C-alpha cells in the first residue's frame, strides 16, 4: 500500500506502553463542563443519566454544586461509590437500545454521538466499516494499550457494529509500527472467525489516522468538508468506541476512557483508565505526574500542558486551579506535559513551499497565511478543508505557527457565514411583513366597501327615520313656523 500524499514520518515515541493500563480510583468529586444543566443542586443521579445536553453522569451520586460561567456551566458530582445504572441501561434489550441508554459518544476526537451515527446507517448495507486504530500522533498510545489488553472485547464490539450497520466488510486499520497490537488483533480475529473482518496495516506517517486521510488511504475517496464517510459508502468508528459498544451492549457500559499521560516533563508516562469527569489534578496526582510535585527534575524551561496530542491538542495553562476544573471527557485521549527550553521566534514567511509539500489535504498553507483575513481568498484556497494537523507548523523554517492563524481565519469565515444566514432570515421576515401589510390593507378596504354596500341595501331604522323626515320636509309638511310653535 502506498502512503498518502503529504504528512510527515514522525517517531512514534509511545512512552507509556511499558506498563499495563491502571485504573484511576474514584475521585472524591467529578466535574462536568457543559452548556445547559438538566439537574439542580442536591439532585440524586444515576450512572448514565443525562445531567446536561450531551453530558452523562459517569457514576451515581448527588449534585453538590453548579457554577454558571459566561460561556459554560460546571456541574460537580459527589459519587456515592455504588455506580448504580439507570433502569434504561439495565432493561435495554437490543444493541441499539443499549447504546441509546448508555448515551455513547465516539472516542475518536470529534465527539459525535455513536447512536446518531448508527441510527442514520442502521442496516444501510454500506460497503465498508472502517475501524480507526491507526493512532498516528506521536506519544498517544491509549488505543494501542486498549488493543493490547482487550482485543477480544474490541472485536466483539466491532461484530456488534457490523450487525447493526450490515456493512459488507470491515477494515481495521493499524499502523505498521504497532507490531504487538497487530498480533493481538490478528489472534482475536482468528478466534472470532468472522470472514468479513480484515486487518489492514498502513504506513506509520502522521496524520494517517485523521478520518479524511485514512479513508483516502484505504479507498482513494476524497472527502470534502461537507461530506460524511457515508457519502463514499463507508462508515468510520474509532477502535475505543468499539470497545465501549461491547460493554454497552452487555448492559454494563463504561463511562470512561483510556487516557495517555506522556511528555518529557512527566515522571511516569502511562496509560490510565479514568471515568469521564475525573479532574485532571486527580488523574495526575494518582499517577505521580502533577507538575511541581517532582523533585528529580529541576524545572527548567517553559512548561505546557496539552489536552489531546502533542500536535492536535489544545493548550491549557499549567496552574493547578485550571487543572482542577478541567476533566476527562470523551475527546480527552491524552495529557501531554512538556518542557521546552527555547521557542524560536516567528519570522517572515519566505514562501519556501515546504508547508504545501507536507499538507495531507493538498492545501496551500502559505497562501492561506497570506490571505488570512480575506474571506474570498480563504474560500478559494479551501481553508475549511484544513484538518489542523500542524504538519505545516513543524516544517516551517520561519517557525510560523500557521495552524493558529488558520484557526483564527476559520472564525472569520464562520462569522461571515453567520452574517449571511442572519441576512437571509432578515430578508425573509421583511418580505413576509410586506406581504402581510399589503394583505391587511386589502382586507381593510374590502371591509369598508362591504359596510358601504350593506348600508345601501338595507338601511338601518335611524337612516330610515332621517330619510322620512327629509321626505316630509321636501313635501312641505314641516314648516319653519312649526318648529317655533
Amino acid at each position, binding site marked *: 500500500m502506498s502512503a498518502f500524499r503529504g504528512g510527515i514520518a514522525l517517531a512514534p515515541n509511545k512512552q507509556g506502553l511499558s506498563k499495563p493500563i491502571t485504573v484511576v480510583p474514584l475521585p472524591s468529586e467529578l466535574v462536568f463542563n457543559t452548556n445547559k444543566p438538566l439537574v439542580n443542586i442536591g439532585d440524586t443521579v444515576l450512572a448514565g443519566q443525562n445531567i446536561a445536553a450531551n453530558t452523562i453522569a459517569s457514576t451515581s451520586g448527588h449534585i453538590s454544586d453548579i457554577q454558571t460561567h459566561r460561556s459554560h456551566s460546571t456541574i460537580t458530582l459527589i459519587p456515592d461509590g455504588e455506580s448504580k445504572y439507570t433502569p434504561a441501561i439495565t432493561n435495554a434489550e437490543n444493541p441499539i437500545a443499549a447504546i441509546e441508554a448508555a448515551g455513547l459518544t465516539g472516542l475518536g476526537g470529534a465527539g459525535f454521538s455513536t447512536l446518531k451515527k448508527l441510527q442514520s446507517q442502521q442496516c444501510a448495507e454500506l460497503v465498508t466499516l472502517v475501524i480507526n486504530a491507526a493512532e498516528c500522533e506521536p506519544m498517544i498510545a491509549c488505543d494501542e494499550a486498549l488493543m493490547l489488553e482487550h482485543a477480544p472485547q474490541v472485536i466483539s464490539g466491532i461484530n456488534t457494529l457490523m450487525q447493526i450497520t450490515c456493512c459488507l466488510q470491515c477494515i481495521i486499520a493499524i499502523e505498521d509500527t504497532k507490531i504487538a497490537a497487530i498480533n493481538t488483533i490478528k489472534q482475536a480475529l482468528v478466534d472470532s472467525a468472522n470472514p468479513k473482518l480484515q486487518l489492514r496495516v498502513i504506513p506509520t506517517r502522521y496524520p494517517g489516522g485523521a478520518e479524511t486521510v485514512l479513508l483516502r488511504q484505504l479507498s482513494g475517496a476524497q472527502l470534502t468538508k461537507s461530506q460524511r464517510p457515508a457519502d463514499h459508502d463507508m462508515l468510520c468508528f474509532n477502535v475505543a468506541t468499539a470497545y465501549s459498544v461491547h460493554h454497552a451492549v452487555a448492559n454494563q457500559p463504561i463511562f470512561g476512557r483510556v487516557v495517555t499521560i506522556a511528555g518529557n516533563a512527566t515522571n511516569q508516562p502511562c496509560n490510565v483508565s479514568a471515568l469521564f469527569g475525573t479532574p485532571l489534578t486527580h488523574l495526575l496526582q494518582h499517577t505521580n505526574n502533577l507538575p511541581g510535585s517532582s523533585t528529580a527534575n529541576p524545572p527548567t524551561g517553559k512548561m505546557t500542558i496539552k489536552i489531546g496530542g502533542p500536535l492536535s491538542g489544545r493548550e491549557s495553562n499549567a496552574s493547578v486551579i485550571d487543572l482542577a476544573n478541567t476533566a476527562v471527557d470523551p475527546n480527552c485521549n491524552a495529557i501531554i506535559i512538556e518542557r521546552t527550553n527555547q521557542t524560536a521566534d516567528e519570522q517572515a514567511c519566505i514562501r519556501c513551499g515546504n508547508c504545501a509539500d507536507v499538507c495531507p489535504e493538498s492545501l496551500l498553507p502559505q497562501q492561506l497565511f497570506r490571505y488570512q483575513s480575506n474571506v474570498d481568498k480563504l474560500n478559494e484556497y479551501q481553508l475549511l478543508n484544513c484538518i489542523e494537523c500542524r504538519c505545516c507548523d513543524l516544517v516551517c523554517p520561519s517557525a510560523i505557527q500557521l495552524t493558529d492563524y488558520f484557526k483564527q481565519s476559520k472564525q472569520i469565515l464562520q462569522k461571515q457565514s453567520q*452574517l449571511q444566514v*442572519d*441576512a*437571509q*432570515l*432578515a*430578508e425573509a*421576515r*421583511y*418580505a*413576509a*411583513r*410586506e406581504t402581510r401589510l399589503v394583505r391587511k390593507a386589502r382586507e381593510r378596504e374590502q371591509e369598508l366597501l362591504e359596510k358601504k354596500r350593506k348600508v345601501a341595501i338595507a338601511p338601518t331604522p335611524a337612516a330610515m327615520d332621517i330619510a322620512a323626515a327629509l321626505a316630509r320636509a321636501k313635501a312641505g309638511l314641516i314648516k319653519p313656523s312649526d318648529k317655533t310653535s
Partner: protein
Amino acid sequence: MLLLLSSFIAIVILFYCVGAALQWLAKPSKQGDNKIEELIESVNDLLPQTQCAQCGFPGCRPYAEAIINKQQAINQCPPGGDATIKDLAQLLGVEATPLDNTLMPHKAPQVAYIQEENCIGCVLCIQACPVDAIVGANRFMHTVIASECTGCELCLPPCPVDCIELRIKQ
C-alpha cells in the same frame, strides 16, 4: 471595368452583411427583463438586509431596484459601509466612492434592547419593526428577539418613553 464594378458590389454586400450582423448583436436580448431581475437579485444579496431605510428607500430590495433601475448611487448604505460599497462597485463595474456623509455613519452590528421596567406596552415599536423582531401586546411588556433583530434603529423614534437602546451585537 467589370472587375471594378463586381469588387465594388462585393464590398458593399460584405459591409452590409457585417453591419446587419453587428446591429443584430447590439440589440438588447429578449431576456433583458430576466437579466435585470438577476442583477437586482445579486445587488440585493450584497446588501446587509438590515432593512433600516437609511438610504431613503423602504428596505434593502427597493434600494437594490433603485440602484439598477434609477442609477441610484451605491454609497447610500450606512450599515453595509465601505465593504458593501466595494462589493457593489466590483459587481457593477463602477467606482467605489466613500459612504455619503449626509447619511448616518457606519456602525458595528448592533441589536435593540428594551428596558423592560420602563416599557409601557404601547406597541408602536412593534409596528415600526421591519422584520417583526419585537414581541408584545397592548399594555403588556415588549421584548426584542435578539437573534432576529437587525439593529436598524427604526424602533427608536416611535417609542414615547425612550426605553429602547442599542447594544453591540455579541
